[in-house]
Structure formats: structure tokens, C-alpha cells
């Protein structure tokens, strides 16, 4: 009897495993077939047969900001190239760069170009590294001022004053002077910021460093995380992610906070106009005011794909042009430049090229495209500077 009844235990376990494997197998077959048939009918005319046959797996990850957009690019790209599979992990810019250096990722995505020290490490590991911006975003200020109608005007010095604690009340003369239509009460300003390490904080603090003497003299500096002086006063609040900052601003009257523009648009948040130090104009953040800035960027100043982009992190900020929003930053992709696996080299190149060309027409609301001249310049450089066994990738595909 003993030997008979011990079997059900093992049997149960075996059944569970068999079911799991069967489901997995049937799924894989189902999706493989559907994906392939779809792709060959719709797009075989666009791409050459050689590049269509490239088979590779690309692991990418990093920035949470670019993640939804990346899912769109991956879905559309892999429907053209069904034998290339791409995964993207929404783990944060810092982790994206770290895992690129660890060899876990083929492409690391960061909301700021990787810092110089990491860039040097990467070139030690990989020889050469390519960097491209993949799309552009802006930072917007949201606020909760009971009774206030219209648009709040802000300057870099006011924002720096609020976050360093130099400006503590809404009726501060600096604020009332540029917002004459509203009688501000003597209420304490609650300054909400990101608690997690984020490219959003990096872009904002870098902009303050460039634009405000108040910020520079405070010595706070810039980075994914900074020591907010306002926290020591007890009127600073850290929220996790855009949603955390938004929740705190909604919950707390007399508060102000910063979020990414696309988040503000999708969630219908009212945003403040910010003075562009280059023009003196107050500009409301929007895709079009971001484009106004981008279109006036001096293209000759842009580094090449093989350069260290970190010194250029602020290149899209404070552009001298009519209606140009000042707090604008790029999102960046990093990948090794030289390969011995030509399938991998071609696959990475095709994906980066797709993002810079077709991908710029597939952007979600609030993600702003690169000027097409910039994108074309980057594509040309990628084709020459990415190599497999010494040969430029552009020469490898027909």
C-alpha cells in the first residue's frame, strides 16, 4: 500500500509541470506564427531580405521615462523584423547604465548622458561606445494655490529660492511682482520634489545650476538625487515618481512640484509658465514650446555619436528663440560601438536607426521628436562608427 499511495504526490507535481510546459509551448508556437505571417505581408517591400534575416536578441533597459515610448518602438520594430527580439526593463536610468557596464544589457537608456566617469569605464570595457538622444522632453511645474486662476509665472531664481528655502511664503515680493493679478496670502510654500533618484531631478537641478545665481551660491549642485535645503526647514516633501509628486501637490494646498511634461499632459495638470533666461519671455511648457527650443539649437555644437555627451547635457536648455520653453532635456541610449557578433551589431544598429527615423513619427503625447537634420546626422554616424570585425555596419546590410 505504501508504494502505491506515495505516487499521487509525485504525480500531482508532474501534472502541474506538464501543464505549465504545454501552455508555454502552445503559446510560443501561436505567437511565433502570427507574428511572422503579419510581418511578411505588411513590410517585406520596405526592407531588404538580408537585414530581415538577421536573428538576434537585444536586451535593453534603464529610464522609466522612455519606457512606454520604448514599448511602442519595440512593438512596431519587431513586427518588421520578427526574428529580432528586444526586451526593455523599466529599472531607472542609473541601473540601465550600470547593467550596460556589467554586460547584462546591450543598450542602456538614461535621461541624461552617462556621467563622464561611467563613460570612461564604458570605453575601457567596450573600446568605443555610441550615444544618441532618442527623444526630447520638458519639465513642468505644477501647483496647488486655492483660488488661483490663470497661469502662475515663475523664474529660475524664484524656483531656486523656493527649493533652497530663501523664499518661504507665497506673498514674497519676488512672486507677487510677476503675478500681479492675484492677491497671495501669507501662506508657507510646500516644495515637493522627487524622493527617488531620477533623470527629472537631474535635468531640473542642472537647469537651475545654469540659470540661477541663487542656486549656484547655495552649493546644492545637480544630480539624480540632491540634498534639498527646503527639507531641513520642514516644508519640503519627497514623492516617489511623477505620481508621488502629483499626489502630494494635490493633497497639500499652497504646494508646488515638478513633473515630466508628458505626465502633466496625460493627467490634465495645470502647469506654470517659466521665464526663459535667454529671452526674458514667460513660456508655458508644451510640445510646441519645446519644439520652438529644439528647432533653434545650434546643430554644429552637437557632439558625434562616439563622443562623451555628458558635458552637453544642458545643450537643449535656455535656447534663444521666440516661444522657446527653457527646461528641456533629452533622453539617451548608449551601446557598444564594436562587435564580433555581426547579427547583434546589425540588430542594434537597425533598432537605433529605426528609433531615429520612423520612430520619431510614433511618439506618444508629450514626447518631442528630434529635429530631422539632427536625426539624419546621427544615423549616418551610427552606420560608420558601429562596426563588426572592423567593418562599418552600414556596409554589411544591402
Amino acid at each position, binding site marked *: 500500500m505504501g508504494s502505491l499511495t506515495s505516487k499521487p504526490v509525485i504525480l500531482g507535481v508532474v501534472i502541474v509541470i506538464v501543464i505549465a510546459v504545454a501552455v*508555454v509551448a502552445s503559446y510560443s508556437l501561436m505567437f511565433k506564427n502570427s507574428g511572422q505571417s503579419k510581418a511578411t505581408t505588411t513590410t517585406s517591400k520596405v526592407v531588404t531580405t538580408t537585414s530581415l534575416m538577421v536573428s538576434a536578441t537585444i536586451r535593453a533597459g534603464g529610464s522609466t521615462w522612455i519606457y512606454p515610448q520604448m514599448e511602442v518602438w519595440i512593438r512596431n520594430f519587431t513586427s518588421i523584423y520578427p526574428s529580432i527580439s528586444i526586451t526593455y526593463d523599466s529599472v531607472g536610468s542609473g541601473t540601465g547604465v550600470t547593467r550596460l557596464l556589467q554586460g547584462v544589457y546591450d543598450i542602456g537608456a538614461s535621461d541624461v548622458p552617462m556621467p563622464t566617469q561611467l563613460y570612461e569605464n564604458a570605453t575601457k570595457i567596450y573600446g568605443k561606445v555610441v550615444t544618441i538622444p532618442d527623444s526630447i522632453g520638458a519639465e513642468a511645474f505644477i501647483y496647488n494655490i486655492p483660488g488661483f486662476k490663470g497661469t502662475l509665472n515663475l523664474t529660475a531664481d524664484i524656483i531656486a529660492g523656493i527649493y533652497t528655502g530663501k523664499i518661504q511664503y507665497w506673498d514674497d515680493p519676488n512672486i507677487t511682482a510677476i503675478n500681479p493679478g492675484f492677491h497671495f496670502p501669507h501662506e508657507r510654500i510646500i516644495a515637493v520634489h522627487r524622493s527617488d533618484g531620477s533623470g527629472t531631478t537631474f535635468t531640473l537641478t542642472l537647469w537651475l545650476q545654469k540659470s540661477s545665481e541663487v542656486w549656484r551660491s547655495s552649493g546644492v549642485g545637480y544630480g539624480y538625487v540632491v540634498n534639498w535645503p527646503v527639507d531641513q526647514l520642514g516644508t519640503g516633501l519627497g514623492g516617489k515618481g511623477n505620481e508621488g509628486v502629483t499626489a502630494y501637490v494635490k493633497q497639500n494646498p499652497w504646494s508646488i512640484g515638478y513633473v515630466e511634461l508628458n505626465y502633466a499632459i496625460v493627467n490634465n495638470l495645470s502647469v506654470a509658465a517659466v521665464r526663459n533666461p535667454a529671452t526674458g519671455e514667460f513660456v508655458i511648457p508644451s510640445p510646441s514650446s519645446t519644439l520652438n527650443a529644439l528647432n533653434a539649437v545650434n546643430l554644429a555644437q552637437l557632439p558625434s555619436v562616439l563622443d562623451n555627451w555628458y558635458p552637453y547635457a544642458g545643450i537643449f536648455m535656455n535656447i534663444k528663440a521666440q516661444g522657446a520653453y527653457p527646461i528641456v532635456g533629452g533622453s539617451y541610449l548608449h551601446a557598444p560601438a564594436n562587435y564580433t557578433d555581426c547579427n547583434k551589431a546589425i540588430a542594434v544598429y537597425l533598432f537605433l536607426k529605426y528609433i531615429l527615423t520612423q520612430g520619431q513619427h510614433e511618439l506618444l503625447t508629450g514626447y518631442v521628436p528630434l529635429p530631422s537634420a539632427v536625426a539624419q546626422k546621427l544615423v549616418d554616424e551610427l552606420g560608420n562608427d558601429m562596426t563588426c570585425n572592423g567593418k562599418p555596419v552600414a556596409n554589411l546590410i544591402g
Partner: protein
Amino acid sequence: MKGQEALILSLTLAATALVFAPFFWILGAVAYNGALVLAKAGLGFLLKRPPLPGTNSLGGIGTVIEGSLLIVGMAMAIATPLSLLTALHITLHEDSPIAKLGRALMDIMVEFPTIVIGISVFLIFGLALGLGLSALTASIALAVIMIPYTTIQAVEAMKIPKEVVYEAAVALGLREGHVAKIILTEGKGGVITGVLIGMAKIFGETAPLLFTTATSFDILANSPLSPVSAVPVLIFVYAFSPYTNWQEVAWGASLVLSLIVLGIYIAVRLSLSKGGLRE
């Protein structure tokens, strides 16, 4: 005296009600929001690929269900035999130092922060041994989490049969293999319970998967080394996204995951009551 009794009774009752409240509140919120989504998306929700952000489409969670089944299945395949053999050893040689150490280790491991297990498994298996972010790495992390649950349950289940039959078996001169078989057979209900509890535990586990799986949810793992994703990770990422359709998918997925875990616990109750009847 009477008054004191009534006071204690009302205090314990109130505390119990207070404990119930969040449970039903959470279950209610998940059931309500999840059911709305499932009604809108239909049964295809269990099969389709996830939707693109910012669209009106809900798509489904077919790909992540596949991923979850794959890694939970692989984790069970690793953890079940290891747990049962460990439990047998601990039971049969309960006074030996290794068995004592094993039992103590299992008690510690069961309380160990799973996020630490996730990052350790990623560092050792993902990076050092080169498995990367793969189905295998994820299932090893889940197996490490499952083993102490299953082992402790199995040890408990084998305790009584061992006390009853061990001396008789030794007196009869039966070998260790025979004794093990008898103990395993008699404790069957409890052992299955242990496996099921371990399974329920790892099905909803999120923290270790953040280090070992992809957050691309449109992928199908077809080998142990391919990237994989899982239902809890989708919920984590989609719930925090700014897009309404992704947030809805997260609610739907929460309901599906809750139903799976509840289903496993119902199976646990059933196997327990059967095991009880046998004795």
C-alpha cells in the same frame, strides 16, 4: 468577574473585526475594479498581448501568464524534490547536527527578505554564472523562496507518521528507503499542502522578480535562458504608469492573480481535510 469576561470578549471581537476590515476592503477593491476591466476586455484578457500605452485598447495578459506559469513551474520542479528530500532527512535523523542545522536554517530562510534573495540570485546566477536576466535565474530565485515553506510544512506533516511507525519499522529491520516511503505516504496530505503553499507564495512574489525578469511584457519565453516576465511585475509597472489603459490592465491582472492564489489556497484546504480524514 462577569463584566471582565464581557470586556475581553468585546475587545477580541472588535480586534478581529478590525483585522477583517482591510482584508475585505482590499478584496472588494480588487474584485470591483478588476471585474470592470475583465467585463470590458472579455475572456481574451487571459490570452492576448498587453496593449500599447495611451490607446483605448485593453489587450490582455496572456504573455505574462505564460511567463508566470513557466517560472513557477520551473521553480516547483527545482524546489519540490529538494524540499521533500531535505524534509525526509530532517525527520529521519532529527538529532543529527546536520538535521538540526537544516531545520534552523529553514526557519530563518522563511523569514528572509525576498528582495535580498532576488538581488543575491541575480548577482550569483545572473552575473557571476552568466545566466543573465532569464527564466532560469527568476525560477532559481523563486525556488530559494519556496524551499523553506515546503520543507517546514513537509517536516510537520511527517512528524506524526514518523513517531508512530519509525520504531516499529526499525524493530522490523526495514531499511531507510522503506521507512521513508511509509512516512511520505502517511504524511501525504500535509506534504501536498506544503507544495501548494509554496506555490501560492511564489505566484504572487514580486520583489525578487524585479531583479531577475524583464519588464517587457510582450515577450514569450521559449527556453530557460530567454527573458521572461510575470504577472506581479506587470501590475507593479503598469499601476505606476501615467496611462489609463495600462492602469486598467493592472487592475484586471490583480484580480486574475488574486483568483489564482485563492484557487491554490482552496486546493490547500481540500488536501488538508482529506489528509485529516485519513488519520
